């Protein structure tokens, strides 16, 4: 989502963070899928390691964006979006886990690998919803 940031430093920093998040997300998907197919040996472990590191990098870039943005209101909205997204993702996956445990035939198994992807999608939705609430009206 494009934030109307006037400050050039903020805009540049946001772009860098978005590029880092995009690359780490692609790496995460590619390596986690590869590690599912390569079950044994150092290649599988390496793929899993890269997937884990890229997810960590994604969280770090989000953290940097939240802490270093100079526009404090944008920072508040971003933090609110990430907190809501984390809570919703945790709630959804916990409920899914319990359903899987007590009624295994009703839902398919959700691999842990998909949780970061769910977090990304829910974060995008939360950002859209929260930023729309504060969209400035015309003067």
């Amino acid at each position: 989502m494009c934030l109307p940031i006037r400050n050039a430093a903020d805009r540049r920093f946001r772009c860098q963070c978005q590029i880092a998040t995009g690359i780490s997300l692609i790496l995460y998907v590619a390596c986690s899928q590869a590690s599912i197919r390569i079950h044994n040996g150092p290649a599988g472990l390496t793929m899993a390691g890269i997937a884990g590191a890229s997810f960590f990098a994604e969280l770090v870039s989000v953290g940097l964006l939240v802490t270093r943005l100079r526009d404090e209101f944008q920072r508040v909205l971003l933090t609110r979006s990430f907190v809501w997204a984390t809570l919703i993702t945790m709630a959804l996956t916990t409920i899914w886990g319990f359903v899987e445990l007590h009624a295994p035939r009703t839902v398919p198994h959700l691999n842990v690998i998909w949780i970061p992807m769910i977090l990304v999608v829910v974060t995008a939705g939360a950002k859209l919803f929260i930023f729309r609430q504060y969209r400035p009206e015309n003067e």
Partner: protein
Amino acid sequence: MNNRLRVLRAERKWSQADLAQRLEVSRQSVNAIETGKYDPSLRLAFKLAKLFELPLEQIFSDH
């Protein structure tokens, strides 16, 4: 918290975008402060006071 941002801005014939540029924030931020949806930090409040050349209490009030 109430503020006179809209009035002070109008007196100077500044748009929200003009004020946002001067404060180095987004127009969304200026709008949120003006409409009372967001109370700025002390840092931003002092920046506003400096920009309008007024003491804080002439811009913000708690009633």
